[in-house]
């Protein structure tokens, strides 16, 4: 079933440059109740790529996936799979396989029948079905469970059956909607690796939906970050981390979240002033044509160090008010006397937390920061200390829009 379908004539919306696995063109989705779930989504997924859709709850990831599957009909735009415009086709005719969050196993059929079903629908012979099911069962370690019904399986086993049902028939694409969210943490990490290995082995274009940024970063060849139905950025994980398109992406990717505060950009962008400290920017870090005025500054917790070295040459004096140990590292929390960034421009969940952690005295302007420091620093709560960082790791965002003005210089190590 190597269905490299020929590009049909008269289907103009196909990118001719490289074999596009999946292509969203100006896809809009407004539900009957007026909810707009997707706004003009444009996205080209390459053949064989593993792409993750990520974003906060309600951002439209599932909707995008369901439109791709044909389970939901977009109110505008077109979808192409392997060069074929499938906008007007039902899910039956798109030749895609999907793993549902709830697994959606057929409860009245045995594991064998569940796995065999897609093949039976396609009219395969009994022998061919048996071979295919046996192959998948071996691959996923389901051989001993074939005669059981889904009701008699554990969560992890069900998840495997759901994967198996998708794998059994060589589809044009795999779609997965939070397939691991019902598993416990250890199993989730294990399956994460397993899905990646399967993908490498089969090479089938995969779209994977999750709200978990760690899952997105670790699994995706490229990650599409969605917010409120709009695509924010579509890039490799490392680039999302280092060069976020805007403050939302910066705040969504990374854990603990990036530290954000209001700051002031000096004339000619020679310096940026954070909480009264002027931080001079070397020429390589100056922003061309950016007028002086308020900006938002971002520094990742990992960018801080407890000692000065070549890569950490700007100091900040802090008073830790909470220290959490991660073993090799400490999360050192402190407040700096700078205004917080507008909540509307960050990923909502995290800003809500930072609001809760504001001190009781509301008039005092302050913002919470976290530094991830080597455990050797031996800092203590309430004792003044110095942390170091580099202007290479500073990010600046436009005050009004949150658009990135200055991204961090590349080559920062990934967080765990």
């Amino acid at each position: 079933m190597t269905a490299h379908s020929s590009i049909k004539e008269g289907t103009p919306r196909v990118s001719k440059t490289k074999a596009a696995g999946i292509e969203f063109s100006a896809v809009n989705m407004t539900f009957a109740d007026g909810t707009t779930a997707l706004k003009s989504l444009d996205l080209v997924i390459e053949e064989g790529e593993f792409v993750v859709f990520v974003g906060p709850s309600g951002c439209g990831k599932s909707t995008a996936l369901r439109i791709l599957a044909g389970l939901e009909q977009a109110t505008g735009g077109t979808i192409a799979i392997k060069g074929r415009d499938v906008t007007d086709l039902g899910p039956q005719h798109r030749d895609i396989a999907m793993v549902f969050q709830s697994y959606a196993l057929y409860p009245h059929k045995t594991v064998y029948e569940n796995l065999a079903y897609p093949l039976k629908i396609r009219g395969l012979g009994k022998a061919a079905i048996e071979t295919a099911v046996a192959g998948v069962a071996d691959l996923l370690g389901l051989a001993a469970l074939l005669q059981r019904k889904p009701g008699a399986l554990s969560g992890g086993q069900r998840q495997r059956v759901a994967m198996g049902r998708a794998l059994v028939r060589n589809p044009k694409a795999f779609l997965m909607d939070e397939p691991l969210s019902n598993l416990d943490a250890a199993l989730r990490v294990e399956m994460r690796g397993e899905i990646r290995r399967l993908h490498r082995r089969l090479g089938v274009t995969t779209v994977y939906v999750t709200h978990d940024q760690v899952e997105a970063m670790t699994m995706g060849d490229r990650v599409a970050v969605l917010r409120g139905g709009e695509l924010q950025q579509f890039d490799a994980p490392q680039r999302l981390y280092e060069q976020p398109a805007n403050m939302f992406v910066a705040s969504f990717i990374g854990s603990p979240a990036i530290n954000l505060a209001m700051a002031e950009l000096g004339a000619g962008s020679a310096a940026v002033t954070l909480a009264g400290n002027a931080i001079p920017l070397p020429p390589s870090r100056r922003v061309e044509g950016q007028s002086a005025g308020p900006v938002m500054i971002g520094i990742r917790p990992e960018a801080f160090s407890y000692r000065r070295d070549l890569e950490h040459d700007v100091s900040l004096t802090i008073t830790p008010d909470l220290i959490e140990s991660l073993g090799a590292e400490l999360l050192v929390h402190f407040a700096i006397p700078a205004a917080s960034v507008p909540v509307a421009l960050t990923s909502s969940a995290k800003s809500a937390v930072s609001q809760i952690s504001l001190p009781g005295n509301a008039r005092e302007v302050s913002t919470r920061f976290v530094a991830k420091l080597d455990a050797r620093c031996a800092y203590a709560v309430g004792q003044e200390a110095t942390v170091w960082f580099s202007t290479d790791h500073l990010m600046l965002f436009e005050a009004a829009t949150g658009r990135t003005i200055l991204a961090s210089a590349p080559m920062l190590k990934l967080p765990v």
Partner: protein
Amino acid sequence: MTSATLPPPRPTRRLLRARILTLIRAGAALIVSLMFFAPIYWMVLTAFKSGNEAFNATPSLIVWPDFGNFSLVLTQSNFGLALSTSLFVATTSTVFCLILGASIAYPLARIKMRGQKHIAFWILSLRIIPPIAVIIPLFLLLRSVGLTGSIWSLVIVYTYMNLPLTVWLLRGFFADLPAEIEEASFVDGAGRFRTFIGVTLPLTAPGFIATALLCFIFAWNEFLFANILTGAATRTAPVGLTEYVTPVSVEWNKIMAAGTLVVLPVWIGALAAQRYLVRGLTLGAVK
């Protein structure tokens, strides 16, 4: 809000197809509903017709509403009395049902004990016995205590008839209520009875109302027992209806008016209980 700024979406072909299909389904559903509604329409229509119109060989589909038949039915015969008898019997038996039913259903739902399931299923099994099969012994029993001809005989029979339904429905509603809510009340120092009155009852009130409506409907519509157990002065509405049909004169417009009066309260009740109708009609088996 934001959608206003977007260009109007172009419906795709598949969306159009789905819309046409929906239209076809809606049309078919409309036709089917009208077919089931037609006899009802005809009844209500006839109730507003004059005597001649009712017998007209070429029927008229629309008439000028004339409430004359209704007032005649209610004033010129015993039918008004029959309606009030029905109201009394149905209401009283419903109240008894709820009291007895709740006092069985609550322990069944809440207290762990052996044989609980057996009791519940025994109660359910009573539903399978055809009334005709027990009517003679019941009749003889009620006659031996001198209750035949009294409305209380009907109250007793209807309470019995509806009790299995009540127990099963209320048991389901009680079971749906998380035990933690009651346990919180115990911890706060209230006893079982106090908790039942103050916490359980208000929270299961919709279930009680739905159950009551169903009990009322079944008692109100019942005919077999009513026909046998009532005397001339204690007829219920369904029995009263049969008396309109005499070989001498059949005044269909009045019969239909009386029929409409019998059916109307039940329709209102059924529509009010619509959300719980499935649950009630299947004794809680399908929600």
